[in-house]
């Protein structure tokens, strides 16, 4: 419970046995009495066992769907079990659970709240084509949402019942669709999207890619996704 709301934290995990227990433990320590759902996206390692041991509810997908599929499952679980708020959280340790109450409180004035890295908090920096892509995406999406959004690819989000209902029914599986397209669809569905500044940490496990080729591909893909999202019904 945060401010009288029933909150569910959803953590998609794919082969995160090394980090998952620590992440769940931290969420439960910071926010006692909150439910944590780990969606195991067909992991081959001991993610499921570790997550259960750490005290999370574990949903196990029969095969790998990608992060979008795992996230939608979280919203469907939230809808089925009548939660007021679903918080999207990452298993790699980037997100700080101490910001969850701020995200939830911001739902007073919005339906979807994004925890944004570049809004003054923290020292997370990205350079090169990836940074340009993020800047332009932010500018376009801010216009669409009629609110300043500086970190549209952040996976740290909270949704109220309206948001849960939308995403339980519809959530793209494609890479980037789960971040960029979901904002566009939420706005089009008449939901308000706002952001709250958060600081993020270096990943506990895994590494973000910084090669120029990958960054350029990322740039192209993000615009393709954005254009599709804008013309899709």
């Amino acid at each position, binding site marked *: 419970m945060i401010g009288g709301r029933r909150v569910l934290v959803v953590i998609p995990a794919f082969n995160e046995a090394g980090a998952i227990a620590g992440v769940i433990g931290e969420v439960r320590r910071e926010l006692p009495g909150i439910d944590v759902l780990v969606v195991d996206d067909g992991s081959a390692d001991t993610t499921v066992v570790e997550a259960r041991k750490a005290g999370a509810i574990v949903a196990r997908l*029969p*095969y790998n*769907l990608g992060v979008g*599929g795992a996230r*939608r*499952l979280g919203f*469907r679980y939230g809808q*089925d079990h009548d939660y007021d708020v679903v918080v999207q959280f990452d298993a790699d340790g980037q997100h700080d659970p101490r910001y969850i109450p701020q995200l939830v409180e911001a739902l007073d004035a919005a339906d979807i709240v994004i925890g944004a890295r570049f809004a003054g908090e923290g020292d997370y920096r990205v350079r090169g084509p990836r940074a340009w892509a993020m800047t332009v995406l932010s500018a376009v999406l801010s216009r669409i949402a009629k609110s300043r959004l500086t970190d549209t690819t952040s996976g740290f989000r909270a949704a109220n019942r309206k948001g849960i209902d939308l995403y339980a029914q519809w959530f793209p599986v494609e890479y980037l669709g789960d971040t960029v397209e979901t904002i566009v669809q939420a706005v089009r569905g008449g939901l308000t999207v706002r952001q709250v500044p958060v600081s993020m940490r270096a990943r506990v496990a895994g590494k973000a890619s910084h090669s120029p080729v990958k960054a350029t591909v990322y740039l192209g893909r993000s615009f393709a996704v954005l254009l599709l999202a804008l013309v899709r019904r």
Partner: protein
Amino acid sequence: MSLNVTTMICGLILLVGILELLRRRQLREKYGMLWIGVALVIVPLSIFPGLMDRVAGFVGVASGVSLVLFAAILFLLLVCLHLSWEVSRLEEETRTLAEEIALIKIKIDDTAKVGAQDDRG
């Protein structure tokens, strides 16, 4: 061997192949009918390649063979597009099923846990 015989044999093999797949229930009727239709067009054409010449002249294509090639490419493109659409739909359907299964498994685990506690108590 003349060209006519070669094309005829190909056409007939295609027709027999489709019928056999249908007979073994490997093809859904909707696709089976489509491919039988295709075979029924191809077989006469393979026996009498000159058949398309008059149609070709009518639509302004110099030779019937060119028209057949053009029509074939167009048709195959449409079939590919249709199959992409079908695959997208199937992926969405299997995704929904996978999610349902995961949700049901949680429910079963919960029930089993409650049951185990009842047994002990």
